C-alpha cells in the first residue's frame, strides 16, 4: 500500500522536473578553442558520429581585404549517404537543403559554430520520412558541438 503510494509520488515528482532539451531553429555554440583546433575537433567528431565530411568550403577569400576582422570562415558539408538517399528519394524537396552544413568561423581567439536545426527538414518532409531520423541528426549535431566545446 505505502509502496504503491510512494511509486505514485515518485512518478508525480518526475513529471514536474524541468524538461532539459530546448528546440531552437538555429543551433549555435561557441568553442573556446582557436579556429584551427576547433576545425580539427569538428571534423574528427563528425567522423566519430558516423558521418562523412563531403566538402569544406571557404567563403572567406578576400574578407580581410574588405575590412573584416577574420579570414577564418568555412562551411563544412557532412552526411551519411544512405540517409541522404532515403531523404532525396522520399522527399525530393529536401534536396535543396542537403547535404547538411555547419558554418564555422573565428571570433577573436575563439570559434563559433552555427547550423540549422534538422527539425526544419522534418517539417518539410512531413509524413514522407520517419521523424526519428531527424531527431537523431539533431542530437548528433548537439553532441558534435559539445565535443568541439570540450575538446582540448
Amino acid at each position, binding site marked *: 500500500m505505502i509502496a504503491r503510494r510512494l511509486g505514485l509520488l515518485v512518478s508525480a515528482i518526475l513529471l514536474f522536473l524541468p524538461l532539459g532539451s530546448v528546440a531552437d531553429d538555429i543551433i549555435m555554440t561557441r568553442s573556446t578553442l582557436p579556429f584551427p583546433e576547433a576545425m580539427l575537433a569538428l571534423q574528427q567528431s563528425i567522423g566519430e558520429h558516423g558521418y562523412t565530411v563531403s566538402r569544406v568550403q571557404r*567563403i572567406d577569400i578576400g574578407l580581410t581585404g574588405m575590412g573584416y576582422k577574420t579570414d577564418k570562415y568555412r562551411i563544412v558539408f557532412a552526411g551519411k549517404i544512405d540517409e541522404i538517399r532515403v531523404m532525396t528519394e522520399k522527399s525530393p524537396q529536401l534536396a*535543396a537543403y542537403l547535404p547538411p*552544413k555547419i558554418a564555422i568561423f573565428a571570433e577573436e581567439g575563439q570559434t563559433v559554430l*552555427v547550423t540549422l536545426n534538422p527539425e526544419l527538414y522534418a517539417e518539410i518532409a512531413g509524413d514522407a520520412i520517419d521523424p526519428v531520423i531527424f531527431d537523431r541528426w539533431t542530437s548528433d549535431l548537439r553532441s558534435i558541438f559539445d565535443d568541439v566545446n570540450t575538446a582540448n
Partner: protein
Amino acid sequence: MTGMHKRDVYMRLICGTILLLLAVQISAAPNGRQLYVAHCSACHGDQGHGGVGVPLSLPSFLDSVDDRFLAVTIRQGRPGRVMPSFPRLSDAQIAAIVGYIRSWSDKPAPRYSPLPVKGDVKNGSLLYAKHCASCHGENGEGGTGTGVTFSRRRELPIIAPALNNSGFLAAASDEMIRQTLQLGRAGTPMGSFLEKGLGEQEIDDVISFVRSFAQDQDEGTKTVAANKDKIIRVASPYSLEETVENLKDAIVSQNFILIRTDLLEHGLVKEADENPKQVILHFCNFKFLFDALAVDPRVGMFLPCRVTVTETDAGVFVSAINPEYMSHLFNNAELDQYCKQMHDVYVTILEDATL
C-alpha cells in the same frame, strides 16, 4: 515477519526513497553556467564580453539592471534585433541563468519600483531628438547592426540597442531607464546625462517619451512572417543537362559568379557511385556576400548561393531554399532586405532557366 519488522522495512523504504528523491532534485536543479554556455555564450561570449550580442559582464550594465529586466529579456528576446526569445526555458532555468550572469558582479542586484515616472512626452521628444536620436535612431529603432559582430573591430563602440523594441519595453522599468540615463554605461558609448546637464525632470520627460514607443512599436521591427514557403521549386521542361546550362547563363546574367557545379552526393560516396541526376550549382556575388555577412555572420550557413537540379520519374525540378523563410529564423530585421533581394534573385534565375 512481525509487525515491528514490517514497519522497520517500510521506514527504511521511505527514508531511502526520500534520499533518492532529494538526489534527483539536486541533480535536476538547473545549472546556470551550463544553460548560459548552451544558450547564450555563442553570441554574448563565454565570459559575457560580447560578440554577436552586446557585452553582459560590464559592471556599469549589471549595476543598472534588475533581475526582472534580465529575466524578461531572456524570455521575450528582442524581436527583429537578433536576440532570440526563449519560450521553452522554465522559470527556474531562466532564474539560474540570471544568477550566473549576476556572479560576474560582486554587487547585489538593484531593485526597482515598477511604477511609471511622471514626465512630459512632448518635451521628452524634443530632448530625445537632441540627445539620443543620433545613436538610438529617430524612432528608437537602434543603431545599425547589433552588438560587436565578428566583422567589426572589437575596439569599435557597441551599437546602441533599439528602444522601441517590444522586448526592451517589456523588460525595462521606468526606474531602470532613469538609472541608466543618470549613470550612463561606463565602457560603452552611453554616457551619463546627469553629467551632460539634463535635470531630473528632463530625464523623466525623456523616459515618458521612450515609453510612448510602446504604442507604435509593431511597425518597423517586425520580421518577415514565418509562414513563407521553405523552398522555391519549379519544374523544368528541359532535360537535366539543358537545365543546368540554362541556369549557368541565368546566374551570370544576374551578376553572380558561378563557383562550381557538382553532384549532390559528391564526397559522400565513390565518384562512380554518385547519383548523376542531382546537380548543385554554387554561385556568389562577393559584394553581396560581404554586405550580408556584415549584417549577420550567421548567414554564411546559406552561402555561397546555390540551386539544385534533380531528375526523377516526376521530371526535372530546380529548387532553392527560400531566403525569406530563413530571414525569420535569424530574428534580424536588417537581414530581411538581403533575404528579400536574394529571394528575388533565386526566383528570377529559376524562371529564366525554365522558361
